[in-house]
């Protein structure tokens, strides 16, 4: 057992170091489930509402693709499992694979593991402590989600089944990441490989659920859903998840015991010997550094956009006589329910895309703190030129994401509804949010230039905009506070008419903030 010497100490160390991260993940998943229960109870207060929602979802392939098989949708529990189940499982799987990647290969790649291994620590202790920590997080997620559902008086058996399926699915993807971490030398590739497995599991399950459900048996997410929470639960599909986890972890342990520290089973591909012609100016570098991130966000926006758009033609059936849902959409105004729905979708997609915009603008700060900016700024590249090259990606990337959102919503809406002539209009409607996104970029630049230590506060602003934008009316946020969000200030196309005044004001404020930040950046020390 000397291989495991030090496991307990390492586990304590991880928990201590990552305590905030661990708590945020667990509470985020539990919060997601708890809020879904609240939302469903609010939106479908009567059995008639539930029956109608069930009828609408049952025949809607898009809803099934994104959520899972329609199981007892005429109950609150069934709706919760439908609306929070697949999404919650994806979040738990992401939690596990990101944590495992970070704690195993990430530590190894950074060279910190080498330092630990030189201590009297067993060869399997790092991997064991990471596995214990992530397993404990998944147990915590299972317990917290179960309690969140029980606290709102959902049936005990169903709550326990759904909670358990979150936990077990998280464990499977922890195992996937653990195996991937043995195969490749680079933690980003670990995330990539495990992410592709997760995506495949989701797609296989979606294809199966549209059909008769047979294909879903080839996906771990399918197994979890076959346990039928709130729909006459059955426990034995969980065995498949347990077996899969065991096999993955055992294989990973064997591989870990055979390889050298720092090595993977697959040698990394060599890079280019010479730089491409585009990599010779600051803008070329900025694009090169951010293209991977932009691609990832683009895929996310496209997938979400297709989801929103494909439901749009049947939105009338969905909402029906449901007053709560109709009220939520009516906030956008508009002549028809469909227009209100599309406007709400674009606002949501713009808020998602702003995640990229802020990340991209914060690149200025991360380049500075990693001291890579220092090397670039010691060449004949002015601070202004260096900063604007990264900001060009942030500003233009925002527009690209909005155009993709419009395109995805428009095409899926057009294809399902049988009228593709809506596409150009909808792309235009989505682009209206560009100034709002730029304003948050400008805010981030202002922080980086004038108060660099507080730059991450821009994420807090986005969170406020998200909460106000998505849950504002439900939470009873005062109107004046809602109106502070640039996304609420934007004309809600296609439900409203384009008004130029707020549009221009947003652009002016964004430009002023950006200029202030750039000026600050030119005047302050680079450290």
């Amino acid at each position, binding site marked *: 057992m000397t291989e495991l010497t030090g496991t307990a100490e390492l586990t304590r160390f991880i928990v201590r170091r990552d305590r905030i991260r661990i708590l945020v993940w667990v509470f985020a998943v539990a919060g997601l489930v708890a809020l879904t229960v609240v939302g469903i109870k609010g939106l479908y207060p009567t059995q008639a509402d539930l029956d109608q929602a069930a009828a609408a979802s049952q025949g809607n392939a898009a809803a099934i693709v994104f959520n899972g098989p329609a199981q007892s949708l005429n109950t609150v529990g069934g709706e919760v499992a439908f609306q929070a189940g697949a999404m919650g499982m994806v979040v738990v799987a992401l939690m596990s694979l990101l944590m495992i990647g970070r704690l195993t290969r990430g530590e190894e*790649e950074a060279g910190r593991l080498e330092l630990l291994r030189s201590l009297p620590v067993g060869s399997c202790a790092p991997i064991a402590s990471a596995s214990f920590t992530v397993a404990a997080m998944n147990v915590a997620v299972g317990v917290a989600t179960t309690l969140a559902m029980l606290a709102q008086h959902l049936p005990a058996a169903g709550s326990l089944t759904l909670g358990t399926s979150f936990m077990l699915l998280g464990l499977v993807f922890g195992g996937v990441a653990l195996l991937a971490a043995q195969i490749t*030398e*680079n933690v980003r590739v670990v995330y990539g490989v495990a992410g592709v497995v997760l995506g495949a599991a989701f797609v296989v399950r979606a294809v199966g659920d549209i059909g008769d459900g047979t294909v879903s048996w080839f996906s771990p997410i399918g197994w979890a859903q076959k346990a039928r929470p709130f729909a006459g639960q059955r426990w034995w599909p969980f065995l498949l998840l347990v077996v899969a986890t065991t096999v993955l972890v055992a294989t990973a342990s064997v591989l870990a015991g055979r390889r050298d520290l720092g090595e993977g089973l697959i040698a*990394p591909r*060599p*890079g*280019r*010997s*010479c*730089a*491409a012609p585009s*990599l*010779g*100016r*600051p803008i070329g*570098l900025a694009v*090169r*550094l951010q293209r*991977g991130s932009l691609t990832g966000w683009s895929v996310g926006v496209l997938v979400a956009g297709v989801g929103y758009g494909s439901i749009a033609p049947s939105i009338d059936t969905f909402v029906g006589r449901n007053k709560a849902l109709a009220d939520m959409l009516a906030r956008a105004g508009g002549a028809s329910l469909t227009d209100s729905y599309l406007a709400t979708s674009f606002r949501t997609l713009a808020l998602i895309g702003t995640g990229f915009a802020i990340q991209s603008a914060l690149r200025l700060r991360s380049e500075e703190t*990693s*001291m*890579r900016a*220092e*090397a*670039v*700024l*010691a*060449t*004949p*590249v*002015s*601070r202004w030129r260096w900063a604007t090259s990264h900001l060009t990606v942030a500003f233009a990337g925002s527009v690209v994401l909005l155009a993709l959102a419009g395109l995805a919503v428009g095409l899926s809406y057009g294809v399902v509804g049988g009228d593709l002539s809506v596409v150009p209009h909808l792309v235009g409607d989505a682009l209206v949010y560009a100034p709002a996104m730029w304003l948050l970029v400008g805010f981030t630049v202002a922080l980086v230039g004038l108060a660099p230590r507080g730059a991450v506060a821009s994420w807090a602003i986005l969170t406020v905009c998200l909460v106000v934008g998505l849950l504002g009316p439900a939470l009873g946020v005062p109107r004046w506070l809602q109106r502070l969000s640039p996304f609420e200030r934007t004309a809600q196309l296609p439900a409203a008419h384009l008004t130029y005044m707020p549009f221009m004001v947003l652009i002016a404020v964004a430009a002023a903030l950006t200029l202030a930040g750039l000026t600050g950046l030119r005047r302050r*020390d*680079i*450290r």
Partner: protein
Amino acid sequence: MSRAITALGLVKTFGRTRALDGLDLTVETGEVHGFLGPNGAGKTTTIRVLLGLLRADAGEVVMLAGDPWNGAVELHRRLAYVPGEVTLWPTLSGGEVIDLFGRLRGDLDRRRRDELLERFELDPTKKARTYSKGNRQKVGLVTALVSDAELLILDEPTSGLDPLMEAVFQDCIREVKAEGRTVLLSSHILAEVESLCDRVSIIRAGRTEQSGTLDELRHLTRTSIIAETERSAERLADLPGVHSLEIDGTHVRFDVDTAHLDVAVQRLGELGVRSLISHPPTLEELFLRHYGDQLAREHDWVKSDREARPSSAR
């Protein structure tokens, strides 16, 4: 010929820490200038001020006849810099980084690039994240050496390099010097400084302690002498400038201030010298001398170390 670097009375504070406290540094055009000081003495802060990345709170800086803060871009066209800790973008290969920096400076000589890659035995296709510390340092060195900048600023450029690569580096710097270019070399490797530098500045706690040629600095310190004489050397004790005199029969050892070396050697000659080992002060001793409070303890350590292997001290 003007000076490459003139810095007078530099002051820089970070919060309550006074990183630079009236530091002076002058580097003549065409010289290789050693920049020495213990960790935390302010070497990197000074270099960042020289590059215009930090603005000094007080003092005057002239770099290549310009102001580094307001004329950073113009200045950077004429210099190349290797940071102490070369951090690279993990997804870019070493070759890509070298090309990028070459093009940002606008003067990438492909033949010279390939020649340097060969001399430093650097594989340009490896992704930066897979490089060891030494290899990252080599990437940084090649980006600077490939340019024809008239001033090179190197912040501990050889940390992590093996002795073979250290030799390659020294050759490269000699070539740079032969072309009449200027080098500011911050380093902890005193043998490297001793073999490359025309002049050195020793700083401590944000101030310049000593500056001058190695010979000038040596003059300020002591030479160690071990000798065997026919007659007992007790008469040396009353000479000025003689320290730590030890006499064991006909064997004698002592340190003498370089200024009084002449008289001491004359007196020794009168005693009938049978054997003589004279040992000029190493840069290490010069360096330790300027630690002040640590001086006594560490100087003793150096001495006892030397006594343990007298054959090496020739």
